[in-house]
């Protein structure tokens, strides 16, 4: 009791400090974030308005240059195309797997198999990919057994589809876990009530499972989208700095600009991309807020 009273007195004396006391826990971390991320990012924003050679203020010139740059447009186009194709496939496939696995006793083992690719380093994957998708590789061998004609997968537009498959292969387990967490949040009572009313399995799925998974759906979409930027790892390892143009992604572009010291272009592109992502992240926040209603 005595100690408590003393505590309140101190807090009255230095109320201003007290208000910030909790922040002390965050201080080391925030200081690091400031030095390594926030201040340098501010510098990048500043640089995006400066000329490459003389560091003079040039207004929006850098932005205009990259928006006319064919490599930039190609990378944006590929990235958008990639995202629009593989994210719906991934999300639906993961949902189907999650629903089936969720209802079964042996789901755990299969889920482990799907999660395993998360642990496999990209360099190891690249070795397998090179042997599988080579023009004389395993995939073409199997295709020939089936009487089909193979092709040089990585040097034709099919490279794009290889990348789609890689992304799904790597992220399926992750999304299954997220969907299963969503499924676990649906109360069993609702299902029982519906079954008593004579609803079949399919009807339950459509009218109970899907609507209840809506909050998970938003989250999974955004997280899958953000993970899709990491598919560059496999693309780079298999195809190098200048891959087939169908898999030339934003990260390839940034790497090439970095090597040429085109920091002005990099800065402008980083600002544009971060603004777009920022919009998506705020959207996710809103989805989370509406999810708890």
């Amino acid at each position, binding site marked *: 009791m005595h100690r408590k009273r003393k505590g309140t007195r101190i807090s009255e004396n230095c109320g201003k400090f007290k208000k910030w006391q909790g922040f002390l826990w965050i201080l080391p971390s925030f200081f690091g974030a400031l030095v390594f991320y926030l201040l340098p990012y501010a510098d990048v924003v500043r640089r995006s308005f400066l000329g490459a050679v003389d560091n003079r203020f040039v207004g929006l010139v850098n932005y205009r240059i990259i928006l006319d740059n064919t490599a930039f447009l190609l990378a944006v186009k590929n990235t958008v195309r990639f995202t629009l194709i593989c994210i719906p496939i991934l999300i639906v496939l993961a949902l189907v797997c999650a629903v089936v696995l969720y209802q079964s006793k042996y789901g755990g083992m299969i889920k482990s198999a799907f999660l395993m690719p998360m642990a496999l380093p990209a360099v190891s994957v690249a070795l397998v990919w090179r042997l599988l998708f080579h023009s*004389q590789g395993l995939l073409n061998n199997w295709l020939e057994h089936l009487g089909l004609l193979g092709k040089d997968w990585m040097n034709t537009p099919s490279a794009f589809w290889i990348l789609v498959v890689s992304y799904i292969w790597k992220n399926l387990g992750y999304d299954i876990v997220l969907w299963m967490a969503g499924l676990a949040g649906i109360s069993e009572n609702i299902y029982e009530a519906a079954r008593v009313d004579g609803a079949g399995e399919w009807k339950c799925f459509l009218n109970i499972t899907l609507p209840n998974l809506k909050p998970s759906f938003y989250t999974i979409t955004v997280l899958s989208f953000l993970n899709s930027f990491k598919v560059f790892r496999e693309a780079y390892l298999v195809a190098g700095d200048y891959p087939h143009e169908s898999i030339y992604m934003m990260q390839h572009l940034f790497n090439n600009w970095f090597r040429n010291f085109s920091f002005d272009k990099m800065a402008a592109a*980083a600002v544009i*991309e971060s603004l777009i992502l920022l919009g998506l992240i705020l959207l996710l926040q809103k989805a989370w807020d509406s999810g708890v209603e």
Partner: protein
Amino acid sequence: MMVRRLFLWFILTALAMLALYPVLFLVSGSFMGKDELWDYLGAVVSGSGGYADFPLLPVYPTLRHYVQIFLDSPEFFVMFWNSMKITFGVLAGQLVIGTMAAWGFAKYQFPWKRGFFLIYMILMLLPFQVLMLSDYLVLDRLALTDHLLGIILPGIFSTFPVFIIYRFFREIPDSLLESARLDGAREWQLFWYLALPIGSSGIIAAMVLGFLEYWSLMEQPMTFLKEKRLFPLSIFLPDITSVEQSGMAFAASVITFLPALLVFLGGQDYLEQGIMAGAVKE
């Protein structure tokens, strides 16, 4: 109904096998002798005719490539230790700094808390390419390019573990903290005796996810390290242009994968909790 269920299971099992296939492929290749590899992969490796072929298990298993790596390739050990230094350097830093920050966000009030939290979330979600130039600018100024610390320090201040651990700390009831305070516990004691033990599964989850991330880290070392002696295993792409080396390449890939596999098998439950923690509303 029964038929449909069986059919779904069949597809799922097939998909799971497909997911595991690359792993089996690597392991089996690493135990194959030179001649066997030549028979199977000659077509890809050195452009002889026909197609590559690959059985699931080696016919004449051998440990030769592993022995070769352990005895004859010191540069492999250097890379292995670089990977270890990066991964454990980052994780040790995150353990201290990230855990503290998570505790602060979970249980204390201070001005502009929501704003700080939003900044942390944005930093967590931005891909490397957006932060690449900023990262380079600061490392250049601190003279940390071409230095392992240039990879480790930004990793320590990653906001991802803060976010994961935060979720677990939130679950600790406030009443527990209040009663400990009434009993005279100081703030650091609350952290040490309550937060750390109760939130330990969250901390482990963050560490498991962090291990998998930093063990396969590619973009940062590729961008910021020029000297070969600093390269971690995660950017070592073995040469497979000759059969002699392709055996080593398989063994090297398996050894690279092994620590991640152990962490995965040992920490799968934590991994799943960590994945979920990253997605659930606070």
